[in-house]
């Protein structure tokens, strides 16, 4: 697996092949079904699980976290045995994943008493995010935003119906503690706020999906955060969103989140197509 192909991008690179494989699979399955007509869901049951091994999955999970800045440079990774336990894989599999990450230069290993695996000092989330943005097509970005909006909107609408105003006030207090010019802290508290709003929907499925998408989009949002003007607008939108949820106004909450996300994606597409961003694409390996 090359470094760029496993970078977190929204572009569905392997889709044409996957489609062909699906069709072949579908033909085989449909001839075997007695009821005649396989449904789309029926086809999904027999989709290939994927030939990427478990070590590659572990590798990708950690690589994604590093490129997204979730695991910042210098951070120590759990020990091999602990990693193996938490991923539910064999220690040899965890070792293989760590080896691959080391070869990609994402982690370094130090020997000795304070040794272990650490996220490499050159792991710069902004550079990773710029490269991922340059490699993501407009259509893929818009699609990612559509997915994010659908989930976020469903979460805030349910939260508006179900949250107690005291729960929103607690989120608001945490938000007020962080100034928006402390960029890293602001990013974190914004992600947390979005996840807490999702949790207030009382839906575990929606919350899990929001967490996944938040993790996927956060590096892109961090790029938007570098623009002080955009950051202020986003702060204002987030506060207005909390007010709408606290007042139980589902429609207003939905409209605020829709505008906020559209604004961010427009900003990202402008950046993607600016000379600086394409430069970073050319210089990437």
């Amino acid at each position, binding site marked *: 697996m090359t470094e760029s192909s496993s970078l977190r991008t929204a572009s569905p690179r392997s889709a044409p092949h996957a489609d062909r494989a699906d069709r072949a699979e579908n033909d085989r399955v449909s001839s075997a079904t007695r009821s005649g007509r396989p449904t789309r869901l029926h086809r999904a049951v027999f989709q290939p699980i994927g030939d990427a091994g478990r070590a590659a999955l572990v590798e990708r999970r950690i690589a*994604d*976290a590093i490129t997204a800045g979730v695991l910042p440079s210098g951070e120590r990774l759990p020990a091999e045995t602990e990693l193996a336990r938490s991923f539910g894989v064999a220690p040899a599999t965890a070792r293989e994943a760590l080896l691959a990450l080391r070869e990609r230069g994402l982690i370094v290993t130090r020997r000795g008493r304070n040794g272990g695996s650490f996220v490499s000092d050159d792991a710069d989330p902004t550079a990773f995010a710029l490269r991922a943005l340059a490699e993501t097509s407009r259509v893929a970005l818009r699609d990612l935003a559509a997915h994010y909006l659908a989930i976020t909107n469903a979460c805030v609408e349910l939260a508006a119906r179900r949250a107690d105003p005291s729960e929103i006030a607690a989120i608001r207090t945490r938000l007020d503690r962080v100034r928006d010019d402390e960029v890293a802290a602001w990013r974190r508290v914004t992600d947390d706020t979005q996840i807490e709003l999702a949790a207030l929907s009382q839906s575990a499925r929606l919350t899990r999906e929001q967490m996944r998408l938040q993790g996927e989009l956060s590096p892109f949002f961090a790029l938007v955060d570098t623009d002080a003007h955009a950051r202020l607008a986003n702060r204002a939108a987030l506060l207005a969103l909390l007010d709408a949820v606290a007042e139980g106004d589902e429609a207003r909450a939905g409209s605020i989140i829709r505008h906020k996300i559209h604004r961010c994606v427009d900003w990202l597409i402008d950046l993607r197509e600016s000379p600086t961003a394409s430069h970073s694409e050319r210089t990437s390996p």
Partner: protein
Amino acid sequence: MTSATASAPAERTSADPVALVTEYFGRAIHSLSSWTGELAGALHEAGGRGAVTTEVLDDLVEPYARRTFDSLDLPVYGAGFIAALDWLSDARSHLAWWQGADRAKLVLASQSVNKELIDYSELEWYRVPQSSGAPHVAGPYVDYLCSDEYTITVAAPVELDGQFVGVAGLDLLIDQVERDLLPRLSAFGSDVSIVNGVGRLLLSTSARRETGDSIRGSSLEGFERGACPGMALEVLTAR
């Protein structure tokens, strides 16, 4: 073990839904309280031998977590101890926590969003026992830190020489609580609901009432209300 055997007969003979609910979650409180003192003693001793690290803590807590799974007559999904912030010598925060079918040790750093950065000090299961000094039944809530499921967390404070050092806790999934409790609650009527301190519905014998929705304000008027002693839960019976 003592809690399960001691309380099992009581629940069979619950005279009213409040007694049933109080006995059910009381089992969890009782079980945690049976080991918080012992754990505090062990932590005290460990502190005397040197700095208490996450590793030392994990080793001390694990037997109590296992005991909670093995001996408690409740569908325990997760159990362990969550350290007070800035109390351990090598980490700002730490969850010595085991969960799931295989009772795996929770490792936060390996998850998609870095949950190690989530500040748990303001979450209900930590905040309430810390400030009240008493056990608490927290939720229902979507537990995005540990179980990733719709959860009830029962938590009891652990104190060392009068200082709060963390909470002992256990998780129950609402899914399992519903399977467990709903048939027994149904004996008391077709519209009996359990709500928490903010009026959030934990479960109801009425199929039209949705878990997670709220019964607050004027909508409370149609119910006879019974508070469960020692926990922030109420039983609402439609009049």
